[in-house]
């Protein structure tokens, strides 16, 4: 109503001014001169022009937008104020060029800007309205085409003018329209994305990702444009104060877009790797409504289960994780959960049966509690303590995956071998005592030290996922490769350690057995007969082992047979017991203590490092290793006896 009055008033004034001029001068040309010479008349004419522009704007708005919504109007007014103040600032820079034409150009720019904002709001509104009419599409497409065309026209015009007449105020217009052009392109892309989304019945999950990347690229172009504009303006004119605010805003938008893209990538990666798909049973056991979108979840891989057992749509969860890495329901921090548990859950179903079997914990050795163990506290200590630990290691390695990693069974199990073989050597010495350890105590102790599994030459131990992780140029691929190499390094270290232990043990064994043999050879000619019946249970174990003789085996055999031979030379036994052998065995114990005290440290170190590295253990071990470990016990007995 007020607008109508204003329009009417300005019309009347214009008519009055023109009529007055014509009435006084009677002719067209003199009256025009009269009006331009008279300032009040010109003011009226300018007012009329302004009203005309406003009316044009209103008509265009009606044509392309119909009724504006309250929010759109609010946005428009808010942004217009900034635009007007910035335009006034621009006037101060170009006060030399100040002319009605200049003002008119700025007005046009302002109007076009308004339409860009409105178009943006409209396209955003597309997502919010339940029904989008055909008219809406026609209007938006028409408007965007028109705006794009106008922007292009103005940009090329400014470019041409600047080239022919040198830099002028057209520079500003050129940049302004170039930026508006990017806005139009951005809106256009959004519109296309929204339209595609509207056409499809199901929500289009990747739309958000495309939108993010559009935002990022457009933001980048904008910032580059603004920076170029700044540099040129500073060189030619002066510091463009009016461009600071929009430049700052676009930089902030770029930063936000960049952050969003990073967060989104992280969220997607986490979604794909960390959390298992919810199965039909999972969904059946709970209310199968996704709490984020309040829609039903179907067990077709479209939903994910968090470590806290809450289930959501993959897409809903992804967009939430872009903001926050917590469970929406219980607010558990999903990043703090050790990744290996969830990774294990996820991979286990896909693993081949052999791998599954590997992943199962190995039976814990039954460690008998021997109160009367002849060596007392000093003896068993170094031997017994490492055992549970070493037994855990294969389990843990079962969880780790690549062929290189799986061969890491070597150090731990190998060291079991050394421990038990030296132990065997010592027992051999000890058996000279009549009241010595019952031989049947051996079996549970001599645990399966399987031979080190050989690393596989090909990639058959790796799952496709892991192979994929090693390929490519992405950061994570490179990291995966580095991890793999680190594993190999760890294994090499462990192997070196193991070799040292071997050599230490072998040398000590040589010394001890030499004395034993010398002291016993004369007393027992039937020494080598290992399978004598009186050895109660032991021979059973011992009998089969000849297949794989080892140094310790050969050396120990004579002394082992001591107790079974009925006619033991008491003196020799006594000599052995009181004399050199005891000393020697003590010596051996010392050495063994030294080596074993070193050994757990080494293992602890390796274990710790490995735990650190494989916070996300890979779950595969080749079936060969399974068999290796299964046949371990017998071989272990060979070596130990």
């Amino acid at each position: 109503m007020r607008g109508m009055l204003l329009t009417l008033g300005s019309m009347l004034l214009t008519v009055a001014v023109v009529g007055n001029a014509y009435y006084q001068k009677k002719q067209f040309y003199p009256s025009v001169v009269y009006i331009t010479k008279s300032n009040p008349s010109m003011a009226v004419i300018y007012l009329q022009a302004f009203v005309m522009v406003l009316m044009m704007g209103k008509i265009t708005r009606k044509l392309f937008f119909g009724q504006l919504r309250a929010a759109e109007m609010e946005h428009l007014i808010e942004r217009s104020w900034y635009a007007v103040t910035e335009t006034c600032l621009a006037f101060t820079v170009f006060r030399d060029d100040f002319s009605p034409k200049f003002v008119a150009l700025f007005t046009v720019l302002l109007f076009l800007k308004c339409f860009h904002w409105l178009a943006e709001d409209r396209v955003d509104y597309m997502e919010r309205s339940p029904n989008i009419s055909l008219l809406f599409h026609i209007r938006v497409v028409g408007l965007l085409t028109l705006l794009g065309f106008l922007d292009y026209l103005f940009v090329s015009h400014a470019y041409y003018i600047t080239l022919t007449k040198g830099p002028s105020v057209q520079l500003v217009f050129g940049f302004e329209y170039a930026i508006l052009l990017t806005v139009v392109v951005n809106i256009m892309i959004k519109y296309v994305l929204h339209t595609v989304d509207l056409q499809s019945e199901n929500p289009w999950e990747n739309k958000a990702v495309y939108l993010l990347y559009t935002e990022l690229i457009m933001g980048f172009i904008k910032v580059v444009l603004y920076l170029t504009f700044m540099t040129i303006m500073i060189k030619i004119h002066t510091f463009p104060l009016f461009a600071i605010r929009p430049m700052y805003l676009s930089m902030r938008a770029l930063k936000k877009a960049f952050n969003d893209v990073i967060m989104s990538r992280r969220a997607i990666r986490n979604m794909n790797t960390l959390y298992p798909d919810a199965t039909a049973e999972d969904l059946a056991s709970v209310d199968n409504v996704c709490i984020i979108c309040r829609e039903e979840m179907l067990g077709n891989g479209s939903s994910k289960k968090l470590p806290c057992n809450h289930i959501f749509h993959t897409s809903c969860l992804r967009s939430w994780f872009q903001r926050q890495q917590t469970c929406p329901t219980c607010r558990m921090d999903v990043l703090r959960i050790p990744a290996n548990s969830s990774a294990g859950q996820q991979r286990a179903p896909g693993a081949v049966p052999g791998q599954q079997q590997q992943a199962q914990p190995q039976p814990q050795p039954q460690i008998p509690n021997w109160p009367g163990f002849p060596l007392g506290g000093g003896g068993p200590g170094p031997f017994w303590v490492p055992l549970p630990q070493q037994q855990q290691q294969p389990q843990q390695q079962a969880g780790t995956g690549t062929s290189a990693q799986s061969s890491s069974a070597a150090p731990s199990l190998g060291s079991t071998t050394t421990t038990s073989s030296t132990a065997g050597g010592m027992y051999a010495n000890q058996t000279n005592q009549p009241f010595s350890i019952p031989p049947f105590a051996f079996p549970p102790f001599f645990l399966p030290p399987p031979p080190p599994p050989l690393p596989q030459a090909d990639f058959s131990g790796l799952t496709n996922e892991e192979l994929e992780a090693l390929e490519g140029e992405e950061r994570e691929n490179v990291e995966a490769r580095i991890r793999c190499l680190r594993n190999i390094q760890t294994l090499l270290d462990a192997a070196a350690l193991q070799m040292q232990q071997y050599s230490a043990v072998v040398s000590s064994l040589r010394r001890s057995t030499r004395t034993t043999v010398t002291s016993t050879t004369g007393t027992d000619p039937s020494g080598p007969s290992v399978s004598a019946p009186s050895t109660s249970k032991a021979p059973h174990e011992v009998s089969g082992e000849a297949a794989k003789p080892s140094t310790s085996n050969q050396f120990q055999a004579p002394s082992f047979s001591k107790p079974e031979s009925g006619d033991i030379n008491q003196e020799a036994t006594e000599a052995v017991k009181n004399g050199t052998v005891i000393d020697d065995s003590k010596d051996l114990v010392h050495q063994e203590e030294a080596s074993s005290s070193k050994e757990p440290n080494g293992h602890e170190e390796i274990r710790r490092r490995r735990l650190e590295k494989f916070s996300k253990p890979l779950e595969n071990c080749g079936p060969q290793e399974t068999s290796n470990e299964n046949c371990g016990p017998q071989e272990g007995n060979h070596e130990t006896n």
Partner: protein
Amino acid sequence: MARSALRRLMAEYKQLTLNPPEGIIAGPVCEENFFEWEALIMGPEGTCFEGGVFPAKLIFPPDYPLSPPKMQFTCEMFHPNIYPDGRVCISILHAPGEDPMGYESSAERWSPVQSVEKILLSVISMLAEPNDESGANVDAAKMWREDREQFNKITDRLVRKSLGLAPA
């Protein structure tokens, strides 16, 4: 993103129409735009707001339910947790990371689990038990603590006003 927001808002609207909780009426201002809702909240019984019917508007962001809506009473309110312009200050309406009063733990902030119904129920309980530690309206908080009688007088006037009655 907003597409799913629309679907969820429609689902919530349906839910609220089918089983309306006591003392709450809420729905979109117009069917064209589901992102602006109007709500009528009845003052809880046994409090100084008893009997009043207070209109409020809810503005939903395009990424609802990932971000919380904004709620503002459109009538005059006098309450420690309601800004003088009608905006409601309760923790579940704050996205984690923003904490205007600096006292909330993130556990009571917005999460997609919340809904319009829960917000409105929280507002009702807020009307019943103001939290005078978060002073969205410091005058009201002070009066609530120190001069309950005066506070009740003001709210009584507001209740009458909300019902369109002449002040007593």
